[in-house]
Every structure is written in structure tokens, then in C-alpha cells.
């Protein structure tokens, strides 16, 4: 029963993620789109943990750990190196 519920929550979070993906494709500023990518990182971590509980096995928890840590690197690289202004040009 709990594994079915975990799978349902994982499906709900995936729908959530797809909606955010559709919005990220047409976000108004560069910062919006990067924040969407960071939200994907966290949601992906939650989906992986839920899949591990729904019968995927404990190795998926390790994948979730690595994802949680390394999704932040993209955000740091964006803030430090790539973000040049409110609406940067196309290089």
C-alpha cells in the first residue's frame, strides 16, 4: 500500500516537473530559467527517493544523494560565470 502511494506521489511530482519545464522554456529572464533548473534538481531528488521506496532498491538513494549535491554546482556556475545582466545577448 505504501509503495503504491509512493509511486503515486512520484507521478505527481513528475507532472509538477513537466509543468515547470514547459514554463522554463518561455521564462522571461535568464535567472527564472536557472531557478527552474534548480527546482528540477530538488524535485528529481525527491522522485528518486520515492522510486527507491516503490521497489527500485536502496542504490537509488545514493543516486539521489549525488544529484542533490551536484545540481547546486550548475546554480553556482550560473551565478559566478554566466549571468551578465537582466537580458543577456545571444553569444
Amino acid at each position, binding site marked *: 500500500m505504501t509503495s503504491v502511494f509512493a509511486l503515486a506521489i512520484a507521478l505527481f511530482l513528475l507532472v509538477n516537473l513537466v509543468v515547470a519545464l514547459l*514554463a522554463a522554456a518561455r521564462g522571461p529572464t535568464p*535567472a*527564472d530559467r536557472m531557478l527552474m533548473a534548480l*527546482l528540477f534538481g530538488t524535485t528529481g531528488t525527491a522522485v528518486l527517493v520515492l522510486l527507491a521506496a516503490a521497489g527500485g532498491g536502496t542504490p537509488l538513494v545514493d543516486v539521489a544523494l549525488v544529484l542533490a549535491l551536484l545540481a547546486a554546482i550548475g546554480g553556482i556556475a550560473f551565478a559566478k560565470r554566466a549571468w551578465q545582466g537582466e537580458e543577456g545577448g545571444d553569444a
Partner: protein
Amino acid sequence: MLEWLSLALLAVGAFFFLAGTVGLLRFPDVYCRLHALAKADNLGLGFILLGLAVQADSLAAALKLLLIWPLVLAASAGVGFAIARRAHALGIAPWRKEAE
């Protein structure tokens, strides 16, 4: 009993993820959206991890699940600080309600 507690915690976590996504879509400027993202990061993932940890097989598995949470807290705090400081350095003014 423990199972119902777990289900309730999972549902609360899913609600926070939904709230974070809606906030990211609807809030007016970068600083407000960072706030919404931090809610999804910290509370949503925290409740989901807690809900799975209360019904884990062993203590070690539960602790491993709960280990993810402080790591995400640290990462999210660092990213939020870096992005907010860069936005401030670029001269993006915080949003204010229009004076009537």
C-alpha cells in the same frame, strides 16, 4: 499507525512542492522566486524524506535518508546566497507594491 503518519508526511511534502512550483511561476521578481524555491527545497524534500524514514527497514537506512536533508539545506542556502548577491550586484531592484 506508523503507515498513516508516513502517508500524511508524504502528502504534506508533495503539497510544498506544488506550492514552490506555483510560486516560481507567479512571483514577480528574482528575490521572491528564490524564496519560493527555498520552500520547495527545504520543506518539501524534508517532509518527503521524513515520511520515508519513519517506515524504513533499519535505523541505518533511515539515517541515510535523513542525511540527504542537511546536504540539500547547505547546497540550497549557498546557491540562494550566490544568486541573490549576483542579482544585487547587477543592480536588479527588489519588487515593491506600487504606491497608491
